[in-house]
């Protein structure tokens, strides 16, 4: 391994406001920019979810302010059915792309991956900057959909064809849908550049002594996720290109012949296949959800170990399981299409790897819980959210167990059971990973401690609130409550309305509780008590530099790594842990040489 210090000279310390804070090449600034973008997106997405939930229990209610957002979508402040679907589409798109793919991976990963491997910056700082600005432009194009013509598209974040191709199929399906497709295409490019950076950096820029197996689990998670993302987004981009061509260039990739809308035969499209869109989309879409959860798995593992004050029972098993999840994620996309009209034999073929993914996921969970046996537990906001993640991940994962079986999916497909499942794993568990990461790493990023009291209040409100919101979704699904309905008018849905009321109030309460987090974040950023280098007594390299780190991460001296990443629970000069870059010889906790 050649001395990485000769790779210095990517860029000199930045001068000037724009170079330092706006068009920065520094991965730390870029990470914070991604985080800020994700924060903005999640706030918008959350408000959209409130609007949706309010409409569901009171379809004719006048919502103050809504008519200013869209006078056609909400005349007099009363949301129309189409506007509900439009808000729902934007909610899903913002949350999946601009929150879940952005914050845990591009946000925290950009900031901490180079530091955790002892590098000065990412391998390609200019590509890194470009990837953020591409993502930002994609975000702006998406938000623009709110303000054009008929408004945003209403085809859901999944944009099934032909609904997403035919402009006459609904309000928002003209300019709004095109902007959506362009936005996502730009987002893909940002993600591809980001993945390129993460993978190259991890392979090439590790400091002396940082063998692959000595990388912290969060770094492994970012690395594996980037590998998945590289291939997944490379398929979404073609899908979006084909969609855009169908919409504007008169091609017929996805639209068959003889369709009739409003008594008019659609004559400028023929022969296309709507299932082609579904295959392309879900070939991306399934790995995408693992892109959303794996970084959180890595971050939560990293934090739990620190709170347990002992390494996990096996570092390698977690790594191999994450790799297995990544690999299997490419084989299961058809489980979104069990009742889609594809061959029922394919359904059986897809269900087995889907069920098999349970094994590595269970293994990781068993390791988390098993490592807690006989360990200590430092209770902090970060560790509370990390433990909450474990609980949510179990719940969400188990509901997936039902959906993985085609015979059960016949009943549960398209119901609130599915919505409950993915909100549990993505909308709660992954978000908990982000919260845990924020509480854990804010002292390092901002040099100031966040308030632990406010953090704990935030945890309680969110943990209980999230279960109150999303657990009932599963019961509604069992009763056959169909999803993506803007109102519940069917006979059999009427007895379910009280449950929906409960959910809406829980959602509004939990949403309001997020203000505690925001206040905590902003206030501590400016007025929190100063943080020292290693407030959590951590072992990995991010704790071996100042809070916040200098522009080149380690003050010009690349660290040398002597130990595995999680040497906790030992007797050493600094306490019950030894840092990775400490030359101190200690009786180590099972330096990982064997398979397990």
């Amino acid at each position, binding site marked *: 391994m050649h001395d990485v210090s000769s790779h210095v000279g990517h860029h000199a310390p930045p001068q000037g406001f724009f170079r330092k804070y706006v068009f920065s090449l520094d991965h730390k600034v870029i990470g914070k920019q991604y985080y800020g973008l994700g924060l903005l997106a999640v706030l918008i997405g959350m408000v959209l979810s409130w609007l949706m939930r309010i409409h569901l229990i009171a379809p004719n209610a006048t919502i103050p302010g809504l008519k200013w957002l869209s006078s056609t979508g909400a005349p007099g402040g009363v949301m129309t059915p189409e506007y509900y679907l439009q808000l729902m589409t934007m909610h899903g798109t913002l949350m999946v792309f601009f929150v879940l793919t952005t914050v845990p991976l591009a946000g925290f990963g950009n900031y901490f991956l180079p530091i955790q491997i002892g590098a000065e910056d990412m391998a390609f700082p200019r590509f890194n900057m470009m990837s953020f600005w591409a993502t930002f432009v994609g975000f702006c194009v998406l938000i623009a959909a709110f303000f054009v013509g008929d408004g945003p598209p209403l085809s859901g974040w999944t944009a099934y064809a032909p609904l997403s191709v035919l402009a006459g199929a609904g309000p928002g399906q003209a300019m709004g849908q095109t902007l959506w497709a362009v936005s996502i295409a730009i987002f893909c490019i940002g993600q591809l550049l980001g993945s390129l950076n993460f993978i190259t950096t991890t392979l090439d820029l590790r400091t002396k002594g940082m063998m692959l197996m000595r990388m912290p689990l969060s770094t492994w998670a970012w690395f594996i996720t980037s590998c998945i993302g590289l291939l997944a987004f490379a398929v979404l981009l073609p899908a979006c290109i084909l969609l855009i061509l169908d919409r504007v260039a008169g091609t017929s990739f996805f639209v068959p012949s003889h369709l*009739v809308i409003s008594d008019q035969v659609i004559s400028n499209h023929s022969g296309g296949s709507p299932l082609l869109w579904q295959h392309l989309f879900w070939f991306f879409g399934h790995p995408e959800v693992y892109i959303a959860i794996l970084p959180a798995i890595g971050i939560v593992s990293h934090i739990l170990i620190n709170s347990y004050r002992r390494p996990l029972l096996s570092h390698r098993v977690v790594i191999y399981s994450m790799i297995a999840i990544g690999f299997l994620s490419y084989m299961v996309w058809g489980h979104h299409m069990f009742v889609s009209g594809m061959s029922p034999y394919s359904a059986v073929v897809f269900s087995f790897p889907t069920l098999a993914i349970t094994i590595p996921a269970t293994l990781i969970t068993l390791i988390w819980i098993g490592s807690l046996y006989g360990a200590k537990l430092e209770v902090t906001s970060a560790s509370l959210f990390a433990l909450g993640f474990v609980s949510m991940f179990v719940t969400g994962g188990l509901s997936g167990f039902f959906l993985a079986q085609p015979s059960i999916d016949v009943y549960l497909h*398209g119901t609130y059971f599915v919505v409950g499942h993915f909100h549990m794993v993505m909308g709660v568990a992954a978000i908990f990973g982000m919260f845990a990461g924020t509480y854990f790493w804010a002292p390092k990023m901002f040099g100031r401690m966040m308030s632990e009291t406010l953090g704990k209040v935030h945890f309680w409100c969110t943990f209980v609130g999230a279960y109150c919101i999303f657990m009932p979704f599963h019961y509604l699904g069992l009763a056959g409550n169909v999803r993506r309905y803007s109102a519940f008018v069917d006979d059999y849905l009427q007895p379910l309305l009280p449950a929906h009321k409960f959910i809406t109030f829980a959602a509004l309460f939990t949403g309001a509780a997020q203000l505690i987090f925001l206040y905590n974040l902003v206030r501590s950023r400016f007025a929190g008590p100063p943080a020292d280098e290693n407030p959590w007594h951590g072992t990995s390299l991010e704790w071996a530099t100042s809070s916040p780190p200098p522009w080149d991460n380690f003050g010009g001296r690349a660290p040398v790594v002597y130990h595995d990443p999680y040497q906790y629970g030992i007797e050493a000069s600094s306490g019950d842990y030894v840092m990775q870059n400490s030359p101190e010889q200690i009786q180590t906790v099972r330096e990982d040489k064997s398979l397990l």
Partner: protein
Amino acid sequence: MAKFVAVTLIAIAIGSAIPILLHIWMPPADISTHGHLIDAQMADTMVEAGICFIAAQLILAVFIWLAASRPSGYKIRNFPGGSFVLVLAAFFLVGTEVLALGFFGTKAWANIYFTPPSADSLPVQVQAGQFAFYFRYPGPDGKFGPIHPEMINEANQNLFGIDVDHDQDAKDDIVTAEMGVPANKEVHLLMHSKDVGHSFYVRELRIQQDFVPGLDLSLHFTATKTGRYEIVCTQLCGLGHYNMKAYLNVMSPTDYDSWIKQQAALQ
């Protein structure tokens, strides 16, 4: 604080299990011949998932309770067997469980989808379009007239675009807004979409199948109990998706015969 977390986890686990155990929100009673296999699969999965759920939350709670109140000078201990035991548990216990469910579930699935409809099943065509389902019966000749999309006209109620003047087979076709079927007779449902993607879902029948524009898909089922059931659309199809539904009337054979004659007279 950790003890509160532990107690909350246990409360959540038990609280979540209560509606399931009390059958508060459950699938409606099954009225099909194949549904019992699905229900059995669902019940098995619920038991297994339920046990795993409660066990995991409980064990997590207990470990949290114990771990947070260690005396000073406490030495870390390992889970007995270490990770090796857990790897074995994951592969063999979980692996067997999922394989078994997958295997048995395939039989339930095969029962619906791998078997062709019987020769004497009743063919009914259903067309999904923004935002309604319409049904067509072939009439005494047993044949459906061809569909001419350019003739579809909601205003003069030519919903399927059939040409009664020129197509012989279309003359006796019966188009209805509600679906009627006789009980205990296999129905062969021929599905196509007029415009975008839709889906056909009847909870009580335990069937669900998407309509894919450009594809002619089909399902077959046998309803066993008379009654009036809702057919709802479960594939996002536009602004009227929430309102897109029809009624399925399962009738006794004699009632069905008189119903179909009535409908024929209304054409």
